[in-house]
């Protein structure tokens, strides 16, 4: 059997803001899955916390008529990713499955990519990551523990993608829609996050991503970065439409 390396895959995600309750389950799941170091309070205060996915919370309106708005944000895996060409050593590039990948071993820590990311989704390891003794056995063996001095970011749980693809190769079939999901998608209780292969027109994600979807938008679309993550607007009977367009 020949090893299959060419896939017709383009991994994409849909975030339905309307369903998000801001429960942060995705953040915790991601933290656990991807060996992200523990963010203590002082690290948050230094604004050096690493969260590959975060829930951005915005307040709308004046007291007492205040509404909380949640925006789950992760690496947008842009088609024309601004972070990629600035890296001098190809530590980040675009692979043929639509992923914006990060090569930890190659990274020298210029932090150029972080500056050019308009979504602020790239994270730098300021210190050598340490875990408490009690969490030593919690680390995911499929995921590298990153060294200090390098960038890291959401990979769409590439280890799960690879595992699914390996299984598919062994079973001589294509990866099925919904066969696997990144940790955040798996953990989301309300089904806000949908993940899949958008090159497959029948997949759930491709259905939701259709360009004629009435609630569809992408973050900072005027920058032309072609994000692979599509957002669906909140349905809010009380507010005017344009008030919470996330792109401005």
């Amino acid at each position, binding site marked *: 059997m020949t090893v299959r390396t060419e896939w017709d895959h383009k991994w994409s995600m849909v975030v339905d803001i309307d369903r998000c309750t801001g429960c942060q389950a995705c953040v915790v799941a991601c933290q656990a899955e991807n060996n992200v170091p523990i963010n203590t309070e002082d690290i948050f205060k230094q604004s050096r916390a690493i969260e590959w996915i975060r829930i951005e919370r915005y307040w709308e309106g004046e007291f007492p008529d205040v509404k909380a708005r949640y925006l789950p944000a992760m690496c947008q895996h842009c*088609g*024309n*990713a*601004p*972070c*990629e*060409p*600035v*890296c001098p050593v*190809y530590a*980040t*590039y*675009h692979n043929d499955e639509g992923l914006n990948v990060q090569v930890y071993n190659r990274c020298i820590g210029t932090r150029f990519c972080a500056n050019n990311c308009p979504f602020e989704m790239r994270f730098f390891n300021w210190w050598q990551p340490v875990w408490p003794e009690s969490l030593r056995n919690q680390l995911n063996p499929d995921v590298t523990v990153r060294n200090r001095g390098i960038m890291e970011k959401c990979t769409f749980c590439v280890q799960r993608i690879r595992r699914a693809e390996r299984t598919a190769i062994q079973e001589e079939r294509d990866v099925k829609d919904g066969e696997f999901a990144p940790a955040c998608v798996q953990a989301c209780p309300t089904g806000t996050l949908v993940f899949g292969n958008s090159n497959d027109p029948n997949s759930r994600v491709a259905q939701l991503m259709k360009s004629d979807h009435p609630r569809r938008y992408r973050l900072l679309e005027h920058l032309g970065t*072609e994000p692979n993550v599509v957002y669906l607007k909140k349905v809010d009977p009380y507010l005017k439409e344009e008030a919470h367009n996330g792109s401005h």
Partner: protein
Amino acid sequence: MANQAVLGLYRTPEAAADAVGNLQQAGIGHNDYEIMTGVPYPEGTFGEPPVRHKLYVFPFMGAMIGLTLAILEGAGTQLAYPLVTGGKPILSVPPIIIISYELTLLGAIVFTVIGIIFESRLPRPALGVYDTRITEGLIGVVCTCPEERVEEVRGLLQRAAAIEVKVGQG
């Protein structure tokens, strides 16, 4: 038959120019004498012919070498390691132009410097007949001639109010 070098030392440029004039009148070729100064006088001050050199060839040579290396680096590495970044073409031309610009100029500069050293007839292992007072303002006229003309040249140099005349191996 070994050539001898005769060095006359002068206090003023006028005297040195006289010495050069004497040498020219005696039929000594322009390649056989040199004027050494501690100060850059304008070309032709001593009545010597203009300097001929091929220095302008060097920067062009260097530029061509630099440009070749730059294109190898700029285009070659993109093609040899074809990873897509930022949706830019695998062979992006603007970066090649920038790299070429720098390396072309680098090549030109390095070769110019090599050319200057080469055309200045440096490095010169031994100084030959020389006097350290030249860097203190004296002007030296050194003439290379066959042994039998040494006395004649010494006379020519002496006649132009030389403060000292030295003879040594040329």
